[in-house]
């Protein structure tokens, strides 16, 4: 199953992939486009991705987190393309018999996605568009 989508994320479908009758906890994280960044107004964000490597990195993250938390069921998906304020760019669903593992696994997934998955965002505001973060000189 792909970790990437060009459409709005179907959160109930994602949750349905991980819910088991033995689970007592569902930890759900959504990253959402906000209307500001470092003091500047943001209207929308375009997410660019190198898809084949992103799929590989996200599969590695799932395998590592699943190995670290064997009782947790994991599903997550990142949206690409143009997103408006309030829309979810990533949704992560983790279930487990008890809450500690679900929270921990969910947190580890988002932190690792932000470190290694080749996705870049370009913010658009009233003053124009720019890549977020490193821009050379």
């Amino acid at each position, binding site marked *: 199953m792909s970790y990437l989508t060009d459409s709005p994320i179907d959160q109930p479908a994602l949750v349905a992939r991980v819910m088991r009758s033995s689970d007592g906890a569902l930890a759900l994280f959504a*990253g959402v486009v906000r209307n500001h960044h470092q003091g500047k107004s943001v209207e929308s964000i375009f*997410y*660019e*991705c*190198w898809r*084949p*490597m*992103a799929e*590989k990195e996200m599969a590695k993250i799932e395998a590592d987190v699943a190995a670290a938390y064997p009782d947790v069921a994991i599903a997550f998906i*990142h949206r690409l393309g143009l997103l408006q304020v309030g829309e979810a*760019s*990533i949704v992560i669903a983790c279930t487990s018999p008890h809450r500690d593992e679900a929270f921990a696994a969910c947190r580890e997934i*988002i932190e690792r*996605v*932000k*470190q*290694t*998955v*080749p*996705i*870049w*965002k*370009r913010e658009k505001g009233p003053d124009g568009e720019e*890549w*977020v*973060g*490193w*821009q*050379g*000189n």
Partner: protein
Amino acid sequence: MKVRLLLFAVLRDIVGTDERELEVADGSRAIDVWNGLRAAHPRIASYERPPFTAVNQDYVQPETMLRDGDELAFIPPVSGG
């Protein structure tokens, strides 16, 4: 030997191409290709190392030796999530 160079996001905009076939000398390392880009593009000239380097879709150190047919990518710091 030939390698395929891929560039993304802000690096693609700086260099002006997303994909390029390169003829490189045997024994070349990824950093040698980066140094060639630095020499031609002032916005990255001061960066002695690329932000991230991948060969055949795995992160590697820039000192990695290249082989004929490799797919080399220089990757700006990622900002997904």
